[in-house]
């Protein structure tokens, strides 16, 4: 066990030193790997942050009913009463126009604009949750509400959340596809680097074998070389994604506020970062292993 650990330590140190034999080459390879990994890692970061948007809004389908501006409170009460009896309505919450005005005034970005308006421009409204959340059922209910007297506008509130979730699902698949393609690229880069290393160290490989080195002893430094390149690329990718996060945080936050949303862009979390580094090291290992299988046994 002790000998095994000693061999691993020596192989890792040897691989580390080999990285610095031609440091510029190693640096460029690591940057190439890092940039390739930064694309799927950045995509994952954006997807994780997009969850903030969908999480802020209930994904439960709801129907908003807006009364006509000239409809009085009695008309609103009448609608409330009809909603209470309507088939398919699970719950209806009344939102008085005064509450809406207060909420909008609390928004610093809107307060000034609202102050200059004469009176209260907002209508009374109802937020309705339904028993059957299938789109066709909800559309049917919405169509019925539109026919009621005093109702100005009916809106299916969750539609955009569903669209966003569908986009996130598409984005997730795109990240997986991108990750697979660029991961294959990383394997190819490591394959090529280890092939060159085998050629450079051919004499050492031959002599080691003649002096009693096992196959594993000969392979280990090359495997560590691949893993170190992958890990280095993973670290570069993390730095790129973190830098991009910090750079984009303020402008994206401002953009989200324009849509009355809060978005505080966060870098990759600890688990995602650990997964990225593990995947990078693993792909480096894979590239090195395939390369050794092709070139060392000859």
């Amino acid at each position, binding site marked *: 066990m*002790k*000998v*095994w650990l*000693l*061999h691993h330590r*020596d192989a890792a140190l040897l691989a580390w030193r080999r990285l610095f034999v031609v440091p510029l080459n190693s640096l460029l390879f690591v940057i190439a790997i890092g940039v390739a990994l930064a694309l799927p890692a950045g995509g994952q970061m954006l997807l994780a942050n997009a969850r903030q948007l969908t999480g802020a809004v209930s994904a439960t389908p709801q129907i908003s009913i807006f009364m006509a501006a000239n409809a009085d409170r009695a008309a609103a009460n009448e609608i409330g009463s009809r909603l209470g009896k309507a088939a398919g309505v699970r719950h209806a919450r009344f939102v008085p126009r005064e509450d809406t005005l207060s909420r909008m005034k609390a928004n610093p970005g809107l307060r000034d604009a609202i102050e200059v308006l004469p009176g209260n421009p907002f209508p009374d409204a109802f937020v309705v949750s339904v028993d059957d959340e299938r789109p066709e059922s909800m559309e049917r209910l919405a169509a019925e509400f539109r026919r009621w007297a005093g109702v100005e506008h009916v809106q299916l509130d969750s539609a955009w959340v569903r669209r966003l979730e569908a986009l996130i699902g598409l984005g997730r698949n795109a990240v997986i596809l991108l990750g697979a393609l660029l991961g294959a690229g990383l394997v190819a880069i490591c394959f090529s680097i280890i092939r060159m290393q085998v050629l450079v160290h051919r*004499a*050492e490989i*031959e*002599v*080691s*074998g*003649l*002096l*009693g*080195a*096992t196959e594993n*002893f000969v392979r280990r430094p090359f495997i560590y070389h691949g893993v170190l390149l992958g890990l280095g690329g993973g670290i570069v990718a993390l730095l790129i994604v973190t830098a991009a996060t910090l750079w984009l945080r303020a402008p994206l936050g401002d953009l989200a506020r324009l849509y009355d949303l809060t978005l505080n862009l966060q870098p990759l979390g600890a688990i995602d970062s650990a997964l990225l580094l593990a995947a990078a090291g693993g792909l480096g290992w894979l590239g090195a292993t395939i390369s050794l299988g092709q070139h060392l046994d000859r």
Partner: protein
Amino acid sequence: MIRFDRVAKRYPPGVDALSEVSFEVAEREMVLVGGHSGAGKSTLLKLVAAIEKSTSGAVLVGGQNLGGLSRAALPFLRRRIGMVFQDQKLLFDRNAFQNVMLPLSIAGFPPREATKRVHAALDKVGLGKRENALPAMLSGGEQQRLAIARAVVGRPSLLLADEPTAHLDAETANDVARIFHDFHQVGVTLLIATYAHDLFPGARRLQLDHGRLQA
């Protein structure tokens, strides 16, 4: 220690390097293998070190039949044998100390013990003060002595040497031969392929001619 029983080695496309070779080398014996260039001396040593496999016949080293040796067992056999190669096979990007350290690193010696052994081996061949020198900075004789130090640092019971005094001047060849004698004195079995029999007085001689052992 070594037994060849009707050993033949044929290289493609049908060149017989060794034919019907049978002999034995006892423990602590020093045996010289002579013969003209191409007689099969190097092939014979390679068969003992399991660098090559015989085409027919049996090669036994330390009682172990090398014909039945698995690929996994091969490295452990080689660790028990020290070999000085004809072309030395030194690593030119490593200094003398690192070259001699390599077999011990392979065998997994603890660093402190390995360092002591390397210093002892370099001292033994007179390179104690040149441990930081790269092989390219050493003379031909020093390179040969460095190769010997690497071969003996693991304290093998069997030492093989392929033309260890070739291309050396008379004085340096004598120095190298003296080192082999010293190892023989401490009980190491030696099998040396050489033209220079006179440098190794008292050693038993095997003579090869076109791959056949002469009586």
